[in-house]
Structure formats: C-alpha cells, structure tokens
C-alpha cells in the first residue's frame, strides 16, 4: 500500500472516532497502515519476526499517544516517526548485527523473491539513516519534506543521504 493512495481525510475521521471513545475504530487504522509500517520496519531491521513485534509496539505507542497528535491530517507522518523511533531504538540495541546474510546475486538471474532478498541484503549494508531515506522514498513514496520531518534533519541532508545510498546500492546490486 502506498502512502499516496490513502486519504488523510479518512484517517482524520477514524482518529476523531477513537478520540471520542470508540476505541475499536483504532483497528481500522491498523488495517490501513499495518502493511506499510511493517514493510518499513522489516526493511530497516531485516528480521521479519522481529519486525512484526516492533510493528505491534509502534501501533501500541501510537494508540497510547494519539491524543498528543496535533494535526490529524498528518497522522501518517506521525506514525512513521513513531516507527522510526521504534526501529532506531532496536538498532541501537543490536548495533552491528546484520540479520540478512544472503549474498547479492547478479541482476540477470533474479526472480522476484531473490530480488527481494538481494535488495534486503543490500539495504542492510547501508548506514541506518541512509537506509531509512531509501525505504521511505522508494518504497513508501514519502515526500522529501516528510522524510526530513521523520528524521528531524534538513531536506538537503535527506537528499544527500539518498544520493550516497544510491551510489552504494549501485555498487552492491551491480
């Protein structure tokens, strides 16, 4: 699910319901955002089981802190920011650990699953802040400004990280 295909207005309506006490409506937000957030986390940390647990933690935190969300139309950016914090907290704990250990393969021989594994491996070789920019830009289709807000960095820094990441990925993926 891409960010662009979602309507913030729908998120707003659901959030308003949750804030008025219809707590079960939060599961609608879960259904909508579970897959993008899960894929963001799994590409960031490289471990699918761990990513599921972290995804659940991120949503739990989002639910607990929903009343602190100031702009209801920016729920997705806010949610990615929570997922970002969750990931970086985990990455700090597992500093230096790489979960995906498959060797990159040549482009010509790749099937879709193999492509995914090759990309996941290549991503794990990037510094975390560069990896996050690639994941948020390429796979989650966020704007540079949104990524800058999530990373709490200037837009120019975000773009630099993307260029440097692409240079490294080109070297790894061939």
């Amino acid at each position, binding site marked *: 699910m891409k960010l662009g295909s979602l309507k913030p207005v729908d998120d707003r309506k659901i959030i308003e319901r949750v804030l008025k006490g219809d707590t079960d409506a939060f*599961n609608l937000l879960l259904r909508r955002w579970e897959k993008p957030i899960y894929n963001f986390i799994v590409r960031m940390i490289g471990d699918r089981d761990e990513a599921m647990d972290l995804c659940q933690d991120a949503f739990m935190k989002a639910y607990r802190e929903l009343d602190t969300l100031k702009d209801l139309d920016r729920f997705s950016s806010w949610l990615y920011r929570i997922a970002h914090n969750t990931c970086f907290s985990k990455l700090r704990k597992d500093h230096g650990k790489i979960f995906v250990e498959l060797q990159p393969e040549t482009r010509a021989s790749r099937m879709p699953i193999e492509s995914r594994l090759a*990309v996941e491996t290549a991503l794990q070789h990037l510094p975390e802040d560069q990896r996050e920019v690639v994941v948020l830009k390429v796979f989650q289709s966020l704007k540079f400004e949104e990524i800058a807000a999530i990373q709490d960095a200037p837009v120019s820094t975000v*773009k630099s990280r993307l260029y440097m990441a692409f240079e490294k990925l080109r070297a790894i993926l061939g």
Partner: protein
Amino acid sequence: MSHITEKLAEFIFEELPPPEMAEARRHVAECAYCREQLARFEQTLAMLKAAPDLEPPRDIVFEFDKPVMTRLWRWFPAVAALAAILLVTIALAGRVHIQWRDSQVTIAFGQNIPAVDPNQAALTAEIQRLQGHLAYLEDRQQRVESDTIATASQIQLLARGQRTPPGD
C-alpha cells in the same frame, strides 16, 4: 542551465516546481552527462522496486478494555428486568402489597395495607377540641376556688372586729 546533478532526486521523483521541472526536462534532452546520471539512478531505482512488499505474517488486532462503568451499564437492562420480574412474582404471591395513591407508592410486606377510616381525622380533631375546653374549665375552677378562699378570709376578719368590746 547547469547540470541537474543537485536536483536529480527531485527530478526523478517529480518534486520540482513545474517551471523547474520543465526546464530540467529540456536540459536532460540536450545534455548527455545528465542523461547518463539519470539512467544510472533509474537503474538502481528499478532494481530496488523489483523487491515487492511483504504481507505481514499475522494481523494485529487490539482488544480494548472498556471503562468499568461502561461494562456495568451493559448489564443494567438485564438486572433491571430481573428485579422487575422478582418484584411482580412476590407481589403475586401475596407477600407484598403495593398501592399507588396520591402520587405515592406504598409497599407493605406480609400484610394488607390498612384501610384509611374517613372519620378518623374528624374524631381526632373533636378530641383535641374537647381536651382544650377541659383545660379551660379547670383553669376557671382554680380561679373560683381562689376567689372563694379570699372572700371567706375577709368575712372572718370583719366578724372578729364586731366582737371587740366597746370602749377598748
């Protein structure tokens, strides 16, 4: 226009303002260096996008605890219905007598509600009136007795004065 190296990412992801986007397109069409840069970037991008999204291994579902009062209120209709049934059953069994009169509910356990005597209030009022009259009469009696004693004493004093010898 200079090379678009600095704006390559924004150009590819179409985040440049429309006039700059149009200018960059024109430049790329004319500049071999920028076309090569663009091709290399797009090649890496295509490889990344070949990796599809994963389906989460399980759905996350939150089950939220309702507030205590909400949970209690959910049982209120059942409890109220049960109480009503119980009350009606007991009433029908003759152990409780319920009466609605003058906007007041009277519930009597184990006996009939005593009938109200319509003359009761009038009799009570008459007794109170007679008791007041009796108190008045008793007061009058005490005053007459006091006057009688005082008059008798005066007569005795006068009588003694008449018996005193003349010339004393």
